[in-house]
């Protein structure tokens, strides 16, 4: 009898294990609109990245568990593998390539300084010398600003875009360096009245270019499935429709 139970247990284990393997934990940074929308209770309700994650998981046939997190936390957990997929609008850097896998590009980004409207245009080379700049931690913008000459206090690292915008409106910083598209919702919001892009985006390859979904280093097969799913939605127009739903122009 015990033997039969043991065999049944082994059988159940062998049949259950694939189902567990299909469950994917997806980390999504709580960035500004239109990438993430959250309910008052903090629950993810929508947004470009959320919809994209759900769409890709559906196309992959995976059961995804979406989990909101901060950008630094997301980078750490993807490196650890506790997040198998991460949506954080990451640019590719050599350091990050050592720690995680990058999908095919999902859109293209630039980075721009945001200041109050009418303020003198910020020159990137002297930006940190003349203004306090808010940036999100562990982002390419933080790395860029950190290398700029200027007082250390003039770089104000925060955890999220919301904190960056709050820093601007509350006077903690004179300018912010953010992905250009991320700022659109802020500028269109009542809080963003009186703020504007400060000139053209920063011309630095570290701050512009393709944006990727990241995958845990230990899940290359997941990356392959993810790329295939993205190719599918890109080819059948689903992705362009998704873009049109959240952005005023084609961000690809």
């Amino acid at each position, binding site marked *: 009898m015990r033997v039969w139970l043991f065999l049944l247990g082994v059988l159940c284990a062998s049949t259950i294990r694939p189902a567990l393997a299909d469950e994917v934990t997806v980390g999504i940074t709580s960035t500004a609109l239109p990438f993430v929308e959250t309910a008052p209770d903090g629950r993810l309700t929508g947004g470009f990245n959320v919809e994209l994650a759900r769409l890709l998981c559906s196309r992959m046939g995976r059961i995804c568990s979406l989990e909101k997190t901060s950008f630094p936390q997301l980078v750490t957990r993807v490196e650890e593998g506790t997040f198998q997929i991460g949506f954080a609008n990451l640019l590719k850097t050599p350091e990050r390539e050592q720690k995680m896998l990058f999908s095919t590009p999902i859109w293209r*980004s630039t980075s*721009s300084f945001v200041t109050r409207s009418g303020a003198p245009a910020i020159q990137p080379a002297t930006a940190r010398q003349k203004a306090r700049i808010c940036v999100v931690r562990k982002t390419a913008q933080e790395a860029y600003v950190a290398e700029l000459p200027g007082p250390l206090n003039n770089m104000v690292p925060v955890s999220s875009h919301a904190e960056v915008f709050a820093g601007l409106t509350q006077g903690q910083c004179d300018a912010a360096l953010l992905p*250009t*598209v991320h700022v*659109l919702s802020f*500028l269109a919001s009542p809080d963003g009245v009186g703020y504007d892009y400060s000139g*053209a*985006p920063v011309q630095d390859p570290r701050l512009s270019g393709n944006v990727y979904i990241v995958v845990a280093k230990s899940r290359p097969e997941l990356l392959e499935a993810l790329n295939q799913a993205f190719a599918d939605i890109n080819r059948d127009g689903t992705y362009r429709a998704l873009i049109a739903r959240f952005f*005023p*122009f084609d961000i690809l």
Partner: protein
Amino acid sequence: MPPIPPLRLPSLQRRLLAFAIALAMVVLAALGALLLSGAATHTAIQDSRTETVPHILERQRATANLERLIRFGWIAATAEDPKDWRQAAVTAQALAFHPSLAFDEELRRQVVQVHATLRQVVSLREQAQDLRASRQDARRAAIVDDQAKSLWTPQESVLANLQGRLADDAAALIVTRMDRIARISDLTLRAAVAAALIILLIAGATAWMVGRNLLRPVVGLAQAMRNTQAGQETPPLPLAATAEIAVLQDAVGQLHDALHRANLREHALRASEQRLASIFSASEAAIVLTDSIGQVMQANDSFLRLLGLKDTLDLKLDSLTHPDDRPRTAELAQAMARGEIDRYRMDKRLIRSDGSVVWVDATIRAIRDGDAPPHQYVAVAIDISDRVRVEKELLFIRSLVDQSADPIYCVDPLDGGRMVWANAATCQHFGIPESQLLTMRIPDWDPRVDMQTAQNMMQTALNNDTHVLETVHRVAGGEIIPVEVSASTLEHDGHPYVAGYIRDIRDRNRMLEAVRRSNDDLQQFAYVASHDLQEPLRMVASFLQLLERRYGPMLDDDGREYIHFAVDGAIRMKQLIEDLLAFSRIDSRGAPLAKVDLEQITRESCDNLAAAIQESGATITWKSPLPRVMGDEGQLVRLMQNLLGNAIKYRSPGTAAEITISALRRGEFWTVAVADNGIGIAPEYHERIFMIFQRLHGIGAYEGTGIGLAICKRIVERHGGEIWVESQENNGSVFKFTLKAA
């Protein structure tokens, strides 16, 4: 067919292999070209996917974003609500610097310029908004808004132009890519057509080669096989172009040859059977076929004739065998039945139906299957009665020869004169056993002969049927005895032999020696007598002549006649003595034989007889030149003189003598003939005339002493020749003698 080494034919397999390789290479080349073409097409398609499509998509996105930029710009320049135109302006700025509008430098530059203008437009809208907010001058605000709108409007054209350019670029990209794909397709099509043509060409060449090197030869071989099967003449096969066909043709040729040989063998067998049947029926040899127990199954006519039979019913071969031959026959038959021999041959006697005996040379052969006992016998019998009789006669003659008292032997001239046969008398003659004699050669028993001489003797014997020589033999004990050997040439079975007949001439020599001594004594006596008689005879004649001269007148006629008779007798006696002296001197006073001219001798003889010739009116003729011979010139002059003198003397009465001299060569001798037209000699006197003092006529009829021809005979015999006369009475005479040629 004999192999033709030198001829190395190409291999069909190799040719096909070469064609296959060529075809494979072409196919591979074609496939390679197609693959390359496909790869190029794939590359083009891939390029289209990786380059063209992204470029087009890029341009589509850019075109769409330009469209949005136009819209945002228009909203920014014309919207009433500041919230709207500010958000549009912000969005337009984000859009203007988005990478989707920066992939092309010219595009990026113009878009940035448009954005700069848009910034001016927004600035004017902010001024107008400030004017309205301050309620200072609404009309002024409207003017500023109009300025902003006017400032923006041309930018739409710029952006529209950019859209057109992007569309043109996309179209150009598509056209370029499509042209490239079209070229690749065209090249692919051309390559495919060329490959198809080459493949067709190779296939055609292969078909032609297969037809020429395989199908046609195979059809020819098939036709040859059908002809061979039908027994028809097979036309000559074309020269094989490949080794395989050559092998096939060789095999068919061997098969054809085998069938041809089989047919020939069948024909030959049939012909042989017919010949055997003919031989069996027409053979002079008696042929009989019996079963295993000797019961006659079949016999030919010769067999019936040989034994005087009418048929062979219930006839057993054993019953025909002579009783004396049956044991030996039975012994051989048993050996044959046991398989020890397959055939035997023996001379045996058969009993004919009339009881007479016939000797046959019988050959009996067993017919058996493998090692089984004989089930039939074939007997061939040839009547050898004549041969047996001859053999018996030969045996009888052999007995006679063997028992002859005269030694007879035979030597092999080609084996140095080795004695190969000797009768008992020969063994007795030499005192040596036959076995030893048969190992000896002529020099072993003739001390005068060495090996070279023996060879010469053999050659002489072979050149002459019979050769007689005197020699000596060494007999047992070393005694040398004189012998006369008569050697004759024989031939047996194609091999020459010399038979010798030995005659012991010791007694004859002793007798000849006695005769020679007697002759010498007689000759000495004759010489002495004639010489010593001449003196008293001359004295008697002289004194008689003196008596006649001195006392003749005193005597009467009778007395004078008596004296005359006495003188005449003395003179005749003197002549007789001189002739006798001359006769005796022929051997004792003769000169050595030398080469002499017979014509000169004849002339000298004629000169000596000139008076008689003139007196008688004789004519002597000969045909010059007369030969040169070996002889004593003086004696030969005397010989010719005697013969010519006799021809003149014994001429026919009233007829002048006509004497003709001629010579004819026979071997080593010349035969000289002296023919006349004289009185002739009766045949009964042909021998007598050569005897001394023999006269055919009375003393008064013809002068002479009757010794002339005797002298002639003696002279000729001294020269080793012979003399004889051919004559009939009253019909002239021909004296012939032989002299050895010079």
